[in-house]
């Protein structure tokens, strides 16, 4: 039987955090941000976290869109802070976006990758990060000036500070165990309704 082995270079410890607590703990004040959340778990959990705020554009498809939507938004709104939250699978699908974003270096953009190491919506297959690919190293290699990895509660305080204070373009890898995301928000994300409510709240 074909099996995928963990990379010999895999160097991060096993994830221990539960995303249902870790994501709200990291993003203490979601109201400070314009937000884009990638499909699917992060869109649900940010929708729940923000009580379906119109300052959140949640994706239910277009896998790989979230970081670049965040870039377009951050460049368009330089006086606002922009937060992208997305999963490891969504980020990996357009991982070159990290290079594109780093070249622009928007100081008001923070990207949080909620990395559970799995494709949670499709049968929980191992993702590349679950087998040892290091997105934090990729982000640093692309030129992100601030990169922070949260493996345990011990790294959470610095993560919270970075999210709160925003010292330039930031990539945070939040490593979480397998398991469900909080899903008590909207049942469906209708893209044109998401767009209209986001723009109405921001632009009037």
């Amino acid at each position: 039987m074909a099996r995928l082995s963990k990379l010999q270079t895999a160097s991060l410890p096993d994830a221990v955090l539960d995303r249902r607590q870790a994501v709200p703990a990291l993003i203490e004040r979601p109201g400070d941000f314009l937000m884009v959340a990638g499909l699917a778990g992060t869109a649900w959990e940010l929708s729940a976290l923000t009580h379906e705020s119109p300052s959140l554009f949640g994706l239910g498809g277009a896998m790989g869109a979230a970081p670049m939507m965040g870039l377009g938004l951050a460049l368009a709104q330089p006086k606002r802070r922009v937060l992208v939250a997305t999963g490891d699978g969504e980020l990996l699908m357009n991982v070159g976006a990290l290079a594109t974003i780093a070249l622009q270096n928007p100081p008001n953009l923070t990207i949080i990758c909620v990395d559970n190491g799995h494709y949670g919506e499709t049968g929980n297959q191992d993702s590349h990060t679950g087998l040892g690919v290091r997105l934090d190293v990729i982000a640093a290699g692309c030129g992100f000036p601030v990169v922070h990895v949260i493996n345990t509660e011990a790294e959470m305080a610095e993560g919270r500070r970075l999210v709160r204070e925003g010292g330039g373009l930031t990539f945070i890898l939040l490593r979480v165990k397998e398991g469900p995301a909080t899903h008590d928000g909207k049942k469906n994300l209708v893209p044109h309704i998401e767009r209209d409510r986001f723009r109405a709240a921001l632009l009037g």
Partner: protein
Amino acid sequence: MAEESWPGAVYDLLRAHGVTQFCYVPDAGHKVLIDRSLADPDVHSVPLTTEEEGVAMVAGADLGGQRAVLLMQSSGVGNCINMLSLTQGGRFPFLTLVSMRGEFGEGNPWQFAMGQAVERVLKAMGVIVLRAEQPADVVPCVSAAITMAFQSGQQVAVLLTQRLIGAKKF
């Protein structure tokens, strides 16, 4: 209009209509627009690693109230297909200028498959296609596309045809 002046006129037109985010995968057909955007302190000039990044970026710009344009070669259209579900489903204004390969006088056999599929692929994903065949077509086509995208909220591609830009010499 002089044959060589349309690229500059297109840049001026885009700027006059408030386009401030220019994203692109480089192509010879877009050289003037790319160089103008790089020299313009009032715009963001954003090189992409793949064209689909630009589709998402255009949508993000719209969320923030700015106008963007995606510049790409015909081969890049194929890299955008699923991402166009974002612009179609979200009814985002979407403007792209596509420099064509794989058609009139093409000398590289690799270019034909995608070049010949461009119009069908774009239309299949809800993008309206305008073709500029001659220098005199370009500004009217881009002007029409600007209105259709930013006033009417449509997704529009202007194909800068190979007859217009000339087949690449090998």
